[in-house]
């Protein structure tokens, strides 16, 4: 079993009073709790603190923890010979157990409480973050997760059991979305149901397509003459190239809709793909072209700022 220095994790002294431990935990929880924090690796950091606090706030667990003696963090160690007798009867072998799981089982171990047969216990829920490429999110994917979730062993102790779980992700999922995989958490104990697996989805940005709900947006750069005269362009979409008609007199910022080319979720109708018009101008023009622009400037009476003066009047 690897030693963890719970006092150091919370940043308190070994003789800290309960109130100081509570304050230290609360200060850190406010900063790192994944539900309120945007800090990087908040989840991992918070897990450690939660674990440390869970043990140190409980006088019985704290006393048992103190009896383990002082070791370097991460160092392999064994509890003193009489420790199991005194604190953790039935905990079994200590070799492959996590310190947190050992303390989490305090007071829950079968046989410690009297009265009636012990009730069935539901399996632990597992949680995992899943990073998908844009194509995986668009098409759906089957992914493999290496889990090391907490499971009940035959004595009702928590053990980390490595498992590979293959999960089918439905098409059309987006960043921040949470999915549930029923029954794929830890196994139940004494006939209790299995826990569930919860996934939080993160979809990598695509260089062209941007996701908004079930719609997609992309930029469509046009030349000034294409925008004025209209044209037909070949446009890449996630499901292959399509031909898009650009009407005459298309303005910058206009959204041209390609119906049903967005994300498809379940059997609901698909979202749309919108091509947002950008009008690009060449940065270098030769003399002949410059002449053509000058001729255009001389003959055109188009004034895009006509409304400015009118609307600026207070």
């Amino acid at each position: 079993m690897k030693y963890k220095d719970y006092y150091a994790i919370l940043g308190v002294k070994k003789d800290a009073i309960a109130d100081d431990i509570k304050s230290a935990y609360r200060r850190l929880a406010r900063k790192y709790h994944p539900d309120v924090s945007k800090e990087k690796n908040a989840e991992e950091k918070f897990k450690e603190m939660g674990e440390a606090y869970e043990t140190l706030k409980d006088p019985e667990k704290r006393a048992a923890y103190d009896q383990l003696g002082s070791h370097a963090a991460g160092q392999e160690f064994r509890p003193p010979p009489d420790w199991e007798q005194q604190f953790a009867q039935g905990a079994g072998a200590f070799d492959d157990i996590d310190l947190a799981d050992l303390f989490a089982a305090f007071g829950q171990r079968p046989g410690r409480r009297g009265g009636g047969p012990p009730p069935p216990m539901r399996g632990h829920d597992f949680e995992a973050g899943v990073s998908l490429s844009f194509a995986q999110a668009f098409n759906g994917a089957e992914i493999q997760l290496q889990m090391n979730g907490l499971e009940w062993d035959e004595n009702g102790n928590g053990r980390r059991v490595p498992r590979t779980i293959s999960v089918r992700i439905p098409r059309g999922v987006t960043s921040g979305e949470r999915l549930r995989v029923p029954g794929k958490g830890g196994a139940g104990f004494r006939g209790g149901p299995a826990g569930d697996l919860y996934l939080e989805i993160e979809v990598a940005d695509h260089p062209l397509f941007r996701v908004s709900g079930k719609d997609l947006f992309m930029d469509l750069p046009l030349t000034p003459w294409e925008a004025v005269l209209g044209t037909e362009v070949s446009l890449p979409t996630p499901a292959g190239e399509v031909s898009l008609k650009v009407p005459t007199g298309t303005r910058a910022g206009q959204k041209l809709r390609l119906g049903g080319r967005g994300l498809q979720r379940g059997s609901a109708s698909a979202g749309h793909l919108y091509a947002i018009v950008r009008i690009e101008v060449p940065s270098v023009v030769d003399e002949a072209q410059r002449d053509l622009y000058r001729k255009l400037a001389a003959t055109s009476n188009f004034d895009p700022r006509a409304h400015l003066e009118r609307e600026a009047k207070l």
Partner: protein
Amino acid sequence: MTVVVGQALTVDEQGTLSYSELVAASGLPAEVVQELVRYGALVPLEPEAPAWTFSGHALFVVRKAQRLRTDFELDTHAVAVVLSYAERIEALEAQLRELRAQLG
């Protein structure tokens, strides 16, 4: 090492949950789930029906409630207040993502 295959469900695919299913999945005591309903943090699909049912979204609400309650040592009323802020932040973040997508 065993390999198991599971189907991930979105909130919409989740279907409705009975009150007891929701309590079991939440890890919360039943009376806390009832309190969350009383405080309006959790809304049954038909509040007047003899047996409550909930949308798939409720599942994620109660799980968050459980984390907040345990990790911050909050009472249920405080949990309900934090949940309403969290929901507003999530809605604003979603709106921000959508606007960013539209602006490019």
